[in-house]
């Protein structure tokens, strides 16, 4: 009876204080092996100093059809961007 190893999503934090970033996925029987495999598959060139692994089935994702209702509200709020406001040059750097 063969059963495929579950899929894990791999997140790696690089050297310079950045957040963990999704780099890809891999198969492993458990979280311990997932971290070991992630080390071999995704950090062969010193890409990171910390690895997170999450079994793919535990990730909930927004669906493309919701794109409108989810992101539309931010389109109408251009004043959230600093460039919305005209500040006179003589005020100096702001």
């Amino acid at each position: 009876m063969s059963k495929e190893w579950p899929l894990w999503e791999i997140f790696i934090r690089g050297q310079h204080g950045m957040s963990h970033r999704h780099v890809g996925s891999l198969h492993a029987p458990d979280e311990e092996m997932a971290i070991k495999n992630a080390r071999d598959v995704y950090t062969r060139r010193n890409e990171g100093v910390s690895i997170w692994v999450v079994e793919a089935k535990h990730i909930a994702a927004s669906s493309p059809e919701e794109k409108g209702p989810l992101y539309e509200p931010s389109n109408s709020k251009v004043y959230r961007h600093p460039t919305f406001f005209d500040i006179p040059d003589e005020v100096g750097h702001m």
Partner: protein
Amino acid sequence: MYAQLVKTAGSGVKSREEMSENEQDFQDRVDSDQKIEPKDWMPDDYRATLIRQIGQHAHSEIVGQLPEGNWITRAPTLERKAILLAKVQDEAGHGLYLYCAAETLGVTRDELTEELLSGRMKYSSIFNYPTLNWADIGAVGWLVDGAAIMNQVPLQRTSYGPYSRAMIRICKEESFHQRQGYDIMMKMAQGTEAQKKMAQDALNRLWYPSLMMFGPSDKDSVHSAQSLAWKIKIDTNDELRQRFVDQTVPQAKYLGLTIPDENLKWNEERGAHDYSDPNWAEFFDVIKGNGPCNTDRMNTRIKAWEDGAWVREGLMAHADKKAARKQAMTAAE
């Protein structure tokens, strides 16, 4: 190209009127260089073709470890051995990135492996040629990885997000592969008379198989218009092959080696080299399974899969047992 002769699903490029509304939206997104992501709507034929293409690409990375693995224990120095080991390990990694990209399209890893082992899915014809001496390892890195890069660089812009991201990662790593190959070739070509002969012999044997990597000539390349429209193919086979020849000629010249083609010459008018086509009958024959190493490569992969079964099953059983124990302990608390 690592994926040659990928049959594009469907009946060819549809006109705007023939497309459904979904298909029109999809094509608009592709045309405006937006990436298609796993959960997005996509035509069934796009999905099917991509599974074939990415699967074949992944299989090529995995089977591609075999000709080079052949020389790990016989590398001439410890440094060369360590470098070759790192390169072959990279190829395994590239295979894994690509399998994961294919899996986002709804096919499982085991299904892909079984398709390869049953011969229903192919890998690049180049890996059905043997690596007979150390110079072949140089020539493989220089020519085969060179040809692969030529194909993979444009594919970084492919329309399917996961495939594009895998390609970006692979291209970053691949340049080391070609350079280590050229480094071996330089050493051999500048070495003793016997070494130089080996280098020339490797080039003689691997030149045409490398040209075949880009797939059949455009005039015999069926269905490629649809793949181009979907942007899962960016350049035609002949465009890539031409680029490869033009890039390789000065590299061979620097080595003092002769490309085995009497018709190879600069064409001022075209601004490109004229060159001889490989023997296409041989190409189709190798694809069919009759190359020098097809049987050997498949037997090696089948043996690895079968011999590894107890490890895959054992680790899974162990993980299940550990999880059950943990659950029982939590329940008892």
